[in-house]
């Protein structure tokens, strides 16, 4: 039997953007029916590699082979025709159209002159869905599906245009544990049918679980392609960052500390019920649970944005009722939202303005005008203190990496000198090294300034590492409380899934 030809092979690829080398002499190939993990920190060249494999950008040096045939100039259309597809993080679906139409929308380009035969389209959609064993109504409007189901529609769309390789870009970052397992089931099913996958993720556990081989990129260089058997999570982190990253708990036991926040039997219909806990000075309290478990809703209530139907909130022993988040901020509560890009930052505005937006009142002169020099001075100190990597205080936030953007959001709240800080999944979508620096920031704030931190997360190892106590939330209720020493990652995960 002849050896299987790779679906795609990139040979000695080099790509520069201006003076910056994005990829240097990279070798990368994917065999049919293979799940190929691709890992690397932000800026390591993963997305450039994907863009080259799909013809979106052209390499300066190197060759591209598709099924053994040399392609002199790969265009997006050619890549599509040859069966190389990407499922982007945002899925690129049409939320207002049906499942069937999303699967076959690409056909409108070539069948420009024929009528749309709905029955035919729906029948063929059922066939494709059937190949995956997905039970979805082809007539359902895509915008009404859960994110996980929408993702399956995007995968079906690739299959419907006879994909041979499907590149999944961070497919699990918005999925619950169960949805991830379901997705993996579908990947295995399609793999058995000979379809290859490139699986790009920051979640190394998942990369190791689903991949046959893993390629590690660091600073645009291929560090190596390893069979799964040779890898552990620690080794993978080391290969990505070039430094050891511990999984040991980073927190010391908290001495008897003063209570700063207590909530009693908080309930908000349809969101969460009977939530009680306390938070102490200098404590990091983990709140972990799947998406939709009510964790963010509880946080927003404490931040004054969603009034509870019943229950009480006490700050330093005194009951408070917040009518808005302005009340909460006045009482020393800070909230770093889940999606910093959507809710937290004005991306085109300078770093300095983004940092100081919470304390504008303090930067105003006697006549009510803003002091530009004072603003810059405060911002520069924050940039230094919190180790934000920014070219200048007046550079737009957009020019910063994800991890550094997150630090900008954090630092603006710290400037308000809060007593309580709510961090809502602060490491979502940032790379390993940036995660570490966010942990260090949180730990430093708790230890040195005595801030009580409510740390919302969906990664078990993370709460085990940085929290003094961990609350597990499921279907709107707090179901367990642990100390990190009392529970393993596995046990915690089982408790979360329920």
């Amino acid at each position, binding site marked *: 039997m002849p050896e299987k030809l790779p679906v795609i092979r990139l040979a000695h690829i080099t790509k520069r953007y201006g003076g910056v080398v994005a990829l240097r002499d990279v070798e990368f190939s994917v065999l049919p029916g293979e799940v190929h993990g691709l890992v690397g920190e932000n800026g390591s060249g993963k997305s450039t590699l994907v863009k080259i494999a799909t013809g979106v950008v052209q390499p300066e040096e190197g060759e591209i082979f598709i099924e053994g045939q040399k392609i002199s100039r790969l265009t997006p259309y050619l890549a599509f025709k040859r069966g190389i597809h990407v499922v982007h993080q945002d899925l690129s679906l*049409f939320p*207002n159209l049906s499942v069937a139409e999303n699967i076959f929308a690409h056909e409108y380009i070539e069948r*420009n002159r024929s009528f*749309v035969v709905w029955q035919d389209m729906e029948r063929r959609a059922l066939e494709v869905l059937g190949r995956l064993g997905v039970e979805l109504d082809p007539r359902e409007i895509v915008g009404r599906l859960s994110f996980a189901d929408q993702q399956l529609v995007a995968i079906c769309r690739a299959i419907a245009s006879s994909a041979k390789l499907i590149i999944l870009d961070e497919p699990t970052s918005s999925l619950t544990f169960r949805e991830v397992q379901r997705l993996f089931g579908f990947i295995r099913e399609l793999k058995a049918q000979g379809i290859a996958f490139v699986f790009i993720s920051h979640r190394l556990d998942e990369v190791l679980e689903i991949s046959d081989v893993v390629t590690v990129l660091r600073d645009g260089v291929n560090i190596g392609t390893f069979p799964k058997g040779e890898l552990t999570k620690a080794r993978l982190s080391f290969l990505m960052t070039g430094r050891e990253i511990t999984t040991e708990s980073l927190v010391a036991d908290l001495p008897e500390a003063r209570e700063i926040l207590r909530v009693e039997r908080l309930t908000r219909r349809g969101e969460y019920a009977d939530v009680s806990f306390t938070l102490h000075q200098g404590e990091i309290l983990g709140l972990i649970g799947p998406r*939709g478990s009510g964790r963010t*809703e509880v946080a927003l209530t404490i931040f004054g944005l969603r009034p509870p139907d019943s229950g009480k909130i006490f700050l330093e022993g005194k009951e408070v009722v917040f009518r808005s988040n302005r009340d909460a901020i006045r009482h020393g509560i800070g909230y770093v939202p889940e999606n910093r890009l959507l809710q937290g930052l004005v991306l085109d505005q300078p770093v300095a303005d983004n940092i100081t937006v919470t304390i504008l009142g303090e930067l105003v002169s006697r006549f009510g005008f803003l002091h530009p020099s004072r603003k810059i001075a405060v911002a520069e100190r924050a940039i230094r203190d919190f180790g934000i990597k920014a070219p200048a205080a007046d550079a737009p936030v957009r020019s910063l990496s994800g991890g550094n953007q997150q630090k900008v959001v954090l630092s603006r709240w710290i400037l308000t000198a809060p007593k309580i800080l709510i961090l809502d999944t602060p490491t979502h979508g940032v790379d390993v090294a940036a995660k570490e620096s966010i942990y260090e920031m949180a730990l430093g704030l708790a230890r040195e300034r005595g801030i009580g931190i409510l740390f919302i997360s969906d990664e078990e190892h993370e709460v085990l590492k940085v929290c003094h106590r961990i609350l597990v939330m499921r279907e709107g209720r707090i179901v367990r409380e642990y100390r990190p020493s009392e529970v393993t990652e596995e046990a915690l995960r089982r408790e979360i899934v329920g």
Partner: protein
Amino acid sequence: MALLGRVARSTEVYLVGVLLVLSVVLFLLNPKFATLENIFDVLRNNSFLGIVALGELVVLISGGIDVSFTAIATVAQYVMGVLITRYAVESVFLAFLIPIPIGIALGAFNAFLVNRTRVHPVIITISNLNVFYGLLMVISKGKWIYGFPAPFRDFARLKVLTLVSEKGVDYGLSIFTVVWFLIAVVTWLILQYLPIGRKIYALGGNSEAARRAGFDIFRIQLFVYCYIGFLSGLAGFVHAELNQMIQPNAIVGRELDVLAAAILGGASVFGGAGSPLGVVLGVLFIAFVKNGLILMKASAYWHQVIMGFIIVLAATLSAYQQNLERKRRKGV
């Protein structure tokens, strides 16, 4: 039909209900409302509004917006008026052929600017509204046109169905109402069964995904702005027929009525939603309200107040509906 979109369909069912209630109320206030004569009259008088609203719907679905259509209709009908009176054009068909290409050309101009400048279409088309209308006023000096050739006058009285009232006056279903409903059917067929129609929905639903899917965005934009241009030209003809007179300032200013009808009918200013049936119902709703006000002899200023109120109400309702939709999707 099945894939019309469940949201749209529910909007339409809802509108039919509202229309029925409104009709009963109007009938109780003034029984004259429910006479066939009055209904046919309303349908005839609103065929201009109905036709351009269908064009606006198509633009809105694509995620764009056009407010210059009133100026396009005016320019198109004015040029027609000048030509047929000066050269005494006897053929109505020939007259009909004049405004259409003018509308399409001006629509293409809109599409070109929207695509190349990447400025929001509301800005582009407001500017073009002023450019088209301003130029017309400069050149025409605002002069009215009347005294059309006889065949042009007779055409306006053409009916598909003729009845005689108790007082012995002829009335019936006007040819222009038929044209309006025909356009609605054609628009529905295009949107529902032609790839270009589906691409219009897709573009309005997610423009980035449409780009990635390889759709030719300019071609879609060209189609939608030319389509409303075409319908504006046609509506300009209808308007001239209905009034038997062309005033350069008669149409400009009615943009909000048309937008209101489209939004009432389920179209969204964010794109991706709406159906021709909904827009026809939206136009009927506005037409009935206005007719009711006339039958009640309310002052013209009240018309404005009530129209403004309806727009706010429609926009609020559709925002509320979207909110519900989002909550249901999150499914806490």
